[in-house]
């Protein structure tokens, strides 16, 4: 057997060209879902097959790759995908947001502001924001084509009618460049404002559903809302128990079976950086942080 078993970044060059053509179209029509011939990948659907294919298509030998899963660099999914590209492409990898040139993410946008030199690749389970309101694909395509988005607001209306506020907390629908309504993948709505006018190129890949879409740099991204119930970010009313951050998105961690819990930054790199640079001010574990 030859020494290199795989082509660079696993996929063959024809496949990468096919994906790049879809990516170019997606960038040209911000928010529009471009069908592509998604391949079988050596991982189950739902683990980021779409994101991995997009990453493989944009990755070059000089790139520095970072992979996060729910904000963390050290969870199974993130570690596996990072190792996958380290092995099949030989690219350098990092956990530091500012060092990375390509960041593949599942369900979070890093806290650190992204730059023009970076590409953010999202893993998307269900790309169609209208899917739960309209099951027919032929019909949702027509609705996108004609910009018939009234039903999106029906969903938000139902939220307010039942809960008194817009209770959609993740996969919160956005309108991209005043045209297409888009599902931002299951990121918390806390991250929606970061997608607006973002310097980095944002690419979305859905492997099972065979769709690619994109937000080019500095594109207007508006979260849908009502005049009297405007869009609001949500984060737990607490500071990070490890780094004390009051501006980051927090995960709630259950620490015992008596109701004890702590809040920590979901973005593990952001949290570590803050602890390295500043003298720590840890909260005692087991108590709720009391300030926002």
């Amino acid at each position: 057997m030859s020494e290199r078993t795989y082509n660079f970044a696993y996929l063959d060059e024809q496949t990468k060209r096919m994906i790049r053509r879809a990516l170019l179209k997606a960038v040209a029509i911000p928010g529009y879902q471009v069908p592509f011939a998604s391949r079988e990948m050596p991982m189950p659907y739902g683990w980021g097959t779409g994101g991995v294919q997009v990453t493989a298509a944009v990755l070059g030998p000089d790139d520095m790759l970072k992979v996060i899963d729910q904000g963390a660099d050290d969870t199974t999914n993130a570690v596996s995908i990072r190792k996958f590209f380290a092995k099949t492409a030989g690219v350098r990898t990092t956990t530091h947001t500012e060092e990375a040139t390509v960041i593949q993410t599942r369900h979070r946008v890093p806290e650190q502001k992204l730059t023009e030199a970076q590409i953010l690749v999202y893993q998307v389970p269900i790309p169609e924001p209208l899917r739960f309101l309209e099951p027919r694909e032929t019909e949702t395509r027509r609705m996108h084509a004609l910009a018939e988005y009234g039903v999106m607001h029906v969903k938000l209306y139902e939220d307010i009618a039942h809960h008194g506020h817009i209770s959609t907390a993740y996969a919160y629908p956005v309108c991209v460049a005043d045209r297409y309504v888009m599902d931002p993948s299951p990121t918390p709505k806390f991250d929606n404002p970061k997608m607006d006018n973002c310097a980095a190129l944002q690419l979305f890949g859905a492997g099972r559903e065979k769709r690619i879409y994109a937000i080019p740099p500095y594109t207007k991204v508006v979260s849908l809302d009502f005049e009297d119930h405007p869009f609001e970010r949500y984060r737990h009313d607490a500071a990070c128990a490890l780094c004390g951050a009051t501006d980051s998105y927090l995960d709630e961690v259950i620490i015992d079976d008596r109701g004890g819990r702590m809040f920590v930054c979901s973005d593990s790199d952001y949290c570590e950086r803050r602890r390295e640079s500043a003298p720590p001010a840890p909260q005692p574990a087991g108590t709720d942080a009391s300030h926002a």
Partner: protein
Amino acid sequence: MLDADVITRTRIDEAELADEPLLIAEGLTKWYGRQLGCRDVSFELYAGEVLAVVGESGSGKSTLLQLLAGQLAMSSGRVLYRLRDGATRDLAMLTEAERRLLFRTDWGFVQQDATLGLRMSVSAGGNVGERLMAVGWRHYGRIRHEAESWLDRVEIDPERIDETPRSFSGGMRQRLQIARNLVTAPRLVLMDEPTGGLDVSVQARLLDLLRRLVQDLGLAAIVVTHDLAVARLLSQRIMVMKGGRVIEQGLTDQVLDDPQQPYTQLLVSSVVPV
């Protein structure tokens, strides 16, 4: 190019155009392969007028309604409609976007089966508000207020605004469907057996409500029904269909009291007097 404004804006002086038909159907024909749906149906409908289409099952009434509503492609013929700017246009000449906007603002379609015309998993308020949101309403309070007032108009307790139609009776569902269609103040409503499947007392109440709404709002309506009593109560004009063709048409009272065609005579005499 026609913009949304022409379709949705408030009416211009209707009185000036009262002698112009609102809708003109010319030679509507539909073949399902070699099977005839309906053939060469032509009529004119004026603003505020209610036309009943009666006939037995399979006579082509529902096909006709679906052709008018653009749900089926016609084999030949055309439908002309007078838009709110006063211009009469061939519906086939509008773009799909314009046609769909027209159908969900200036037209209504009441289905026989309310589960097809409603979103069953969405609350009553959301059902009524959907058309408003589709034409750009973005104020929750105002949408809700409008939905409440419409529920009241169709005699549904506004307290039940947050319940889904699943918890509603058949009659209530039908009334909710009517509210959902009328909320954008359409000028034309198509109804397919609006009282089908309801028991008699509920039917009577619904007919009463429909008659009042049609009068108050000056709606034009095309009501497909096999129930001659519905035709008698609601409509001014009637069209009798058989085997896909119109065999008799005229003023409702005239046709029902003095039917000329043998089939119409049979239809009228088949009604069991109580």
